[in-house]
């Protein structure tokens, strides 16, 4: 029997409705996995941030660009030995890549306390500040996982890059 199979392994374009279906799948699995309610909620909160981030970037791509990408979006939740891994991949515009990298690198180098302060000041600055985000979602991911965000950005075409993100959280938070 396969050890530690994926709880969710979705390959393809994501959207609001699919996010709902994946949450339902996680909920169904949470009983089998005997997940604490708090752990389930942390995974759902992370899932929502990661997936919304995924399709927000994909929705900005023109159809011909998406067709030119050999790598399609995906989303995985996997139980590993001591943690859950949430992983997502999607094509993004190369012009967005630098800003995204900058945001994640900045969040990754912050001690938890400073991250907490940054999160609070960003929240206090309100709803009118950003579109693609002052990075509140990214900060929330880092705050929940309490670990660095693992990511990569690889060029795939002249205008596209492929972005993957991995978030780890302990088995029973």
């Amino acid at each position, binding site marked *: 029997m396969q050890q530690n199979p994926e709880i969710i392994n979705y390959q393809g374009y994501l959207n*609001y409705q699919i*996010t*709902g279906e994946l949450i339902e799948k996680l909920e169904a699995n949470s009983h089998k996995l005997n997940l*604490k*309610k*708090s*752990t389930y*909620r*942390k995974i*759902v*909160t992370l899932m*929502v*941030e990661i997936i*919304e981030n995924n399709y927000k970037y994909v929705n900005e791509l023109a159809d011909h660009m998406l067709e030119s990408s050999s790598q399609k979006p995906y989303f995985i939740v996997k139980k590993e030995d001591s943690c859950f891994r949430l992983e997502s991949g999607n094509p993004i515009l190369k012009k967005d890549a630098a800003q995204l990298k900058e945001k994640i690198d900045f969040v990754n180098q912050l001690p938890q306390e400073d991250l*907490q302060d940054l*999160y*609070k000041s960003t*929240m*206090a600055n*309100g*709803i009118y500040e950003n579109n693609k*985000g002052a990075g*509140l*979602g990214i900060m*929330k991911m880092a*705050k*929940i996982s309490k670990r660095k965000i693992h990511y990569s950005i690889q060029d795939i075409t002249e205008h596209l890059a492929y972005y993957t993100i991995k978030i780890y959280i302990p088995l029973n*938070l």
Partner: protein
Amino acid sequence: MAERLYIAPTQYTPEIDFDPKKQKFKMGGIARPEDSYEFFEPVLSWVENFVKNTLEHHEENKLLNETFIIIFDFEYMNSSSSKYIFQIISNFKKFYDKRLNVSIFWYYDDPDDQILEDGEDFSEIINLPFNFLIRNN
């Protein structure tokens, strides 16, 4: 007096029940609307108008004897919703700043619940005390 604002919950949008008559304002459920602006902007606008009109048109002495009960009973919220929920709390805080009685109740399931941390963050950012209560279920 402002009309009651009631929005029924859906699988991924919260229930809103703001009842000026009872001075009880409740939000709860799951906050993950497809379009946070579309969902929350009318709610925020209702709160802004309600707070503004209440403070402008009521005699202060009368208001001092009243208590505004604000209840948050969320399972989880996405970050775009949390920005609007924060703005809603910020508006209710104007009552507190005018030394009116405001009681904020924030429900959670257990001490590891993410929603508890979200509430603690809000309370700290806005400098407003919340009553954190464990859900009975």
